[in-house]
């Protein structure tokens, strides 16, 4: 059977249905933000500034989640811009959050759910660019901030983090392709030639 949808329509459907995953990834990071703001405050000025930042993120995500619930999800452009904003927020946290900054900051792990969610929703090339942008931002903020040197230990640790960030994006994209082929198979449309041999089940299973 021939699929009557264009690849663009299929990608738009992916974003329509999948953006809930991105919204929930953001809620997880907001939850961590609330915890850190409440727990780590050392003075009123910092506390106020951090509360304003977290509340701004919450308001934005309430709006996005509410719109999704009302079956008015955002289009590709809005989701992309907001997702890039997520990366910027995490990069700022890594660079400036009180305690340890740059390479020593433990908060780079906030990148993982965002990379995962984005790569599960967007096509391969866009997801790869987003993952690369996250890695580039993290490497830049780690290497430019004080505390990083080119010692073997620091380079090894940074490389390990970059590998797992890339692996998260790559695995999510791989799964996205498997699911796209399964959906096409359910519709009776031939899967893509590139992925068909790798993800096809044996006749006994299917």
């Amino acid at each position, binding site marked *: *059977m021939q699929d009557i949808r264009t690849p663009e329509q299929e990608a738009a*459907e992916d974003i329509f*249905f*999948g953006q*809930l*995953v991105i919204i*929930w*990834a953001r809620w*997880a*990071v907001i*939850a*961590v933000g609330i*915890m*850190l703001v409440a*727990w*780590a405050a050392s003075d009123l000025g910092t506390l106020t500034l951090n509360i304003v930042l977290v509340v701004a993120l919450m308001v934005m995500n309430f709006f996005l989640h509410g719109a999704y619930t009302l079956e008015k999800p955002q289009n590709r452009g809005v989701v992309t811009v907001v997702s890039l904003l997520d990366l910027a927020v995490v990069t700022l946290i890594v660079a400036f959050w009180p*305690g*340890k900054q740059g390479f020593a900051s*433990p*908060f780079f*792990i*906030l990148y*993982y*759910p965002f990379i*995962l*969610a984005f790569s*599960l*929703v967007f096509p391969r090339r866009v997801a790869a660019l987003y993952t690369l942008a996250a890695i580039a931002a993290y490497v830049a903020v780690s290497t430019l901030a004080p505390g990083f040197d080119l*010692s*073997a*230990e620091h380079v*090894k*640790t940074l*490389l*390990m*983090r970059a*590998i*797992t960030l890339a*692996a*998260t994006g790559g*695995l*999510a994209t*791989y*799964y996205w392709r*498997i*699911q796209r082929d*399964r*959906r096409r198979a*359910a*519709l*009776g449309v031939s899967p893509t030639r590139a992925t068909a041999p*790798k*993800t*096809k*089940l*044996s006749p006994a*299973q*299917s």
Partner: protein
Amino acid sequence: MSDPQASEDLALGQYVVVTARWILVAAGLVLSLWVTTDPGSQRTLQQVQISFVVLTLLAFGNFYLNLQLLRKRPALDVVAYGASAADLIVITVLIAAQGGLTSNVYIFYFPALLAISVAFSRSSTVVYTAFAILAYASTVSAGIASTFDSQTVVTRLVMFAAVAFCGHMYFAIEHDRRRDAARAREQTTAALGQR
């Protein structure tokens, strides 16, 4: 597991699980052999030995599972479940061998939990994620020395849960989309048959 849909989910999810495990093995071996601190000490030698043995065992297990996938004969469900449990145990052993809280190996939980969340059922994903969280928390708890350390550990635990939750949410969304697609196909076929 008797549900054919769940078995198919598991079978196709195994491609992601096996790939994630190869990443763990390859990156783990390279990074274990790349010794950067105290190369002459007995402790470092033991760490490298433990890492090598554990990762090699994992590689053999994954080679078997990969062969099954190449033959289009995904392994038995129980083997797949056991192998994923072994992934989490291996990561925890490596963290413990490298000093607990100071170890950077915990980031390998992310690809492992991602793979589990898109391959297994909801209840299994919850069990595996809870296991990873408890295993990590108990491994590093002795090393917590400050409020900042506590915040760091809690942030990591929340992110483990977040990755598993997001992965499984996508799994559920795609499950529903596929079901709707199959229904639409049936309706179209039925309508064409009535003409």
